[in-house]
């Protein structure tokens, strides 16, 4: 079997509908009798609710219901914990509707159901909530101080959990190190900002009692798992469908209060109800990420080789814990980066604040750790006056060390092992594109222009456990159907699954269709988080399609009376090589679908199909190095990114064009984190950047072309040799841009240990450095 599609830049099978306005996103779904909902949300960051008066609101035209927690029967019934952990000291999940207290601006208090969204908004503005404001925790730096206000009234403190990752003897390594440097590093939160906001439709079928929930989610199976027991329903009575989803980027992974509220309200009112998050709601009600403060030390030898890292991280989890400790956990799992450290000792404390809760946003904790480690690497270079790339060269895990046990341990206690990689090749292939940079930099400085070259390397643990699965089936018309639990949000999963199946079954890709994200069409799934779908979903399609292929060959060999070894599958038919004898997959499928009175061949299960699950027993590690060239206008502090190069290793490429798309989008998200996106709250916890004029996403004019170099070290851990590619663009990008800015400002001796950086902040840094 020669790969025809695997490895080729195949145009996506998803595109024709999306290009002609026929994508079916959540808000495009219209059900008979469907009402629309709006939520009354907290305007306070922290307050007791004294009273909620809905009488005026209820009497507005076009209003069907205005429901509080008590009306909905959900008071005192918080949402379940998605990811329980014994480390959690204070178990706090949000109530579907708050009835006693609110803990961040945007928290749901009441649901208003009307004939139209506009009518629901009219009435929502008339719900009177009488609050008793309480002091709010809005500053992570002091959140764990004894005298800090409590994010939750009556709590002993704001401490959620302490996590620690450690190997080697840090005391000894730091004691004998020639160099030890200490840094305080700050990273600020941003949002997901998928162009499609979240949305939910819930409808209960009166006769069957079946509850169907459409949700713009990354994880429909998780929504079902959370909803069914909470509603007291068998899982079989709850079907969750993710329609076309307009981007996810992490925050569409958790299950939200709105999903619970819509389900409960639809059942209560006995009619379908839709809620579509508007952009202002998205700014307060969809989870955010990246607030962390690091106090760390790095030990290096005389040549600048990194020996050890130790320190503490303060992590802001916002007002609740909707996702257990998964987000801080991804921070800890990102060590030791690509570096062969002798010792590591990191302690993380997660804290509650009265801000929007945090869960993973593209990269999760990894961009944080990459930023921290890369700032330390640059610090070593600066202090030792050596090339920044040399610190990496000397500190990386070498190619001959793979598989490499990092020293860290997985949650089950097993050692973490880098399965494959070639960190040095990634580095050198990117570095060589800037061989003339230093001379250009010197020339430019003579003209008063400040160029900088940034560098950042990273690893990404991908293919997160436990599993994804797929059914591959040849239909009686010869066309192939792939059913899978792994839903997509624009990555092109259907295309890559179709590529894999089409190759194995010898059919044109046009003959493969994929159905995903519907708990009613495939029994088990986890979700599209942590760059895991190509690895686990792709492998499961490969396994299932391989079984179908074997089944087809076995049956064809009987029907064509030829040895299996002599058979080839091409253009939807099984041929006896070198003859004109053949049989169509359609005929085989028809045969196995069965005809009354005609027994199936012996030891053959019905249907020309198979189901397989691929279990991710160990992580597969993607890696890479980014370089960026910037110019800083030192008078205004503005930054122009002139060039950006990514050298990237995600194992074998199923579809290079799609991988490039993932990388470019990811890099631009990271550039947003570095230069543009800042979610600002005032001291009382009011968010003040709740529109796109003030919260800035990167735009086409601010972004350079992104050059991509692929290094392929196939993963030995899965049958197709792939590693995840969804977040690798984002992970190093902020670190790379900040590195470049710092490099440009070397003549001013500016040191940068934070992001995002506004032009004003850059100007202040220059002034501050001049002054010292």
């Amino acid at each position, binding site marked *: 079997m020669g790969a025809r599609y695997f490895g080729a830049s195949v145009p996506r099978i998803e595109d024709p509908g999306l290009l002609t306005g026929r994508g079916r996103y959540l808000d495009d779904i219209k059900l008979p009798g469907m009402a629309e909902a709006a939520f009354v949300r907290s305007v306070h960051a922290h307050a007791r609710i004294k009273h909620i008066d809905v009488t005026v609101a209820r009497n507005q035209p076009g209003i069907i219901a205005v429901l509080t927690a008590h009306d909905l029967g959900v008071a005192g019934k918080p949402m379940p914990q998605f990811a329980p952990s014994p480390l959690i000291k204070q178990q706090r999940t949000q109530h579907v509707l708050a009835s006693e207290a609110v803990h961040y601006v945007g928290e749901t208090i009441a649901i208003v159901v009307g004939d139209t969204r506009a009518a629901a908004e009219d009435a929502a503005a008339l719900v009177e909530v009488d609050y008793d404001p309480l002091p709010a925790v809005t500053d992570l730096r002091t959140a764990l101080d004894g005298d800090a206000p409590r994010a939750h009234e009556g709590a002993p403190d704001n401490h959620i959990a302490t996590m620690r990752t450690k190997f080697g003897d840090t005391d000894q390594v730091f004691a004998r190190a020639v160099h030890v440097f200490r840094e305080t590093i700050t990273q600020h939160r941003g949002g997901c900002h998928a162009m499609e906001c979240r949305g939910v439709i819930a409808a209960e079928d009166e006769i069957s009692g079946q509850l169907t929930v459409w949700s713009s989610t990354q994880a429909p199976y998780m929504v079902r798992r959370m909803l069914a027991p909470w509603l007291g329903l068998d899982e079989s009575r709850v079907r969750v469908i993710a329609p076309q989803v307009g981007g996810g980027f992490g925050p569409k992974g958790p299950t939200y209060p709105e999903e619970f509220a819509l389900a409960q309200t639809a059942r209560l009112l006995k009619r379908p109800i839709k809620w579509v998050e508007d952009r202002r709601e998205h700014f307060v009600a969809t989870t955010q990420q990246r607030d962390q403060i690091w106090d760390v030390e790095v030990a290096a030898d005389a040549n600048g080789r990194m020996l050890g890292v130790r320190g503490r991280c303060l992590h802001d989890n916002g007002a609740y814990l909707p996702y257990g400790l998964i987000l801080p956990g991804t921070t800890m799992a990102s060590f030791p980066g690509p570096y062969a450290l002798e010792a590591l000792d990191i302690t993380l404390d997660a804290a509650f604040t009265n801000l929007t809760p945090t869960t993973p946003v593209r990269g999760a904790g990894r961009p944080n750790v990459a930023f921290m480690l890369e700032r330390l690497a640059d610090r070593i270079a600066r202090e030792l006056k050596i090339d920044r790339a040399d610190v990496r060269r000397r500190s990386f895990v070498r190619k001959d060390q793979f598989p490499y046990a990092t020293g860290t341990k997985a949650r089950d206690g097993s050692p973490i092992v880098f399965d494959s990689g070639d960190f040095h090749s990634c580095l050198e292939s990117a570095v060589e594109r800037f061989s003339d940079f230093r001379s250009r930099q010197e020339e430019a400085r003579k003209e008063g222009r400040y160029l900088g070259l940034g560098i950042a390397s990273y690893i990404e643990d991908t293919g997160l456990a436990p599993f994804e699965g797929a059914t591959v089936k040849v239909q009686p018309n010869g066309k192939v159907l792939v059913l899978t639990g792994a839903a997509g949000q624009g990555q092109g999963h259907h295309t890559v699954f179709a590529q894999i199946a089409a190759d194995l079954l010898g059919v044109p890709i046009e003959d493969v269709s994929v159905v995903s994200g519907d708990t009613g069409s495939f029994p088990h799934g986890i979700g599209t988080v942590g760059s895991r779908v190509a690895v686990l979903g792709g492998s499961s399609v490969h396994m299932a399609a391989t079984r179908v292929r074997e089944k087809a060959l076995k049956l064809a060999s009987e029907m064509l009376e030829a040895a299996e070894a002599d058979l080839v599958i091409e253009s939807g038919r099984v041929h006896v090589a070198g003859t004109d004898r053949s049989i169509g997959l359609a005929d085989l499928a028809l045969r196995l679908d069965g005809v009354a009175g005609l027994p199936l061949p012996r030891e053959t299960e019905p249907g020309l199909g198979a189901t397989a699950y691929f279990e991710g027993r160990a992580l597969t590690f993607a890696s890479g190095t980014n370089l960026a060239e910037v110019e800083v206008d030192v008078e205004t502090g503005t930054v122009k990114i002139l060039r950006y190069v990514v050298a990237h290793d995600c194992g074998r490429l199923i579809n290079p064009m799609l991988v490039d798309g993932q990388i470019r989008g990811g890099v631009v998200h990271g550039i947003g984190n570095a230069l543009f996106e800042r979610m600002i709250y005032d001291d009382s916890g009011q968010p003040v950047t709740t529109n796109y004029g003030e919260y*800035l996403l990167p735009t086409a004019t601010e972004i350079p072309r992104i050059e991509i170099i692929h290094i392929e070290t196939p993963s030995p851990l899965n049958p197709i040799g792939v590693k995840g590619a969804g977040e690798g663009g984002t992970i190093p990008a902020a670190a790379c841009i900040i590195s470049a800015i710092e490099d440009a400002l070397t003549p001013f001796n500016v040191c940068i240990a934070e992001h995002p950086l506004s032009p004003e902040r850059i100007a202040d840094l220059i002034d501050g450095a001049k002054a010292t």
Partner: protein
Amino acid sequence: MKPAPFAYHRPNTINDLVALVASCENAKLIAGGQSLVPMLNMRYVIPDHVIDLNRIESLNFIRENNGAIEIGAMTRQCEIEHDQLIARRAPILQDALRHVGHLQTRSRGTIGGSLCHLDPAAELPGIAALYDATLHIAGPRGTREVNIADWSLGYMTPALEPDEVLTHITFPLWKEPHGHAFLEIARRLGDFAIVGVGCLLALDRNGAIARAAISLVGVSTAPVRLSDTEAALIGQKPTESTFKAAAEHARTIECLEDAQISASYRQRLAGVLVARALKLASARAEITK
């Protein structure tokens, strides 16, 4: 994010408009709507009546008259952006328009809407200030004129009575050959200006500065003309040190601050951009000499 309900009116003539405006309580006029509709959608502004100016044909024109460019209040930004007369006679308007929102908002946005909305960062009021423009007002008491210097009464508050409407704007053109420059720093192209600087500069036969106009947007609630700086420039040679001195002046103007931008940063940019705009305008003035 849907607006609160309102009644809608669509007059066809200025007279009908003036009558309507006088008869509607809590009304908002909609021109291009590119600032108003977001405020409606976000329910910052909740009018009982919205009066649409888009069908009043007589408010849409660009013409030269008596040494001045006259632009009707409902002339769309994209029309000014591509107009040949403007390109010849007041190209700085087109330079500034490149920074006004985006392709799609300039398709609807109007010059009159921009002047009446009077956002502190808006570019077009800054150009009006640069030219000492006159605003022509119609109302139940007849018509009147307001100089741009008297137009702002405060934050987003033009000198317009509730029953009056802006009909057109007159930009007196400079008779002498001159150079122009419009420079702006915003976070991204099309964003609200942190600071924008417009500059017109004429040189005499000896190469000294004969006339100068400098206007800044973004720094205060209304465009700021640097009259003292302009006066000090007269007779000076257009050199780096002249520009530097002007920049020093610009750095001392009192500036607004908000959640993201401090006053001192605005002052810094005012200085930098004034120097750069003067340099560019004088280079262009050299060519026109």
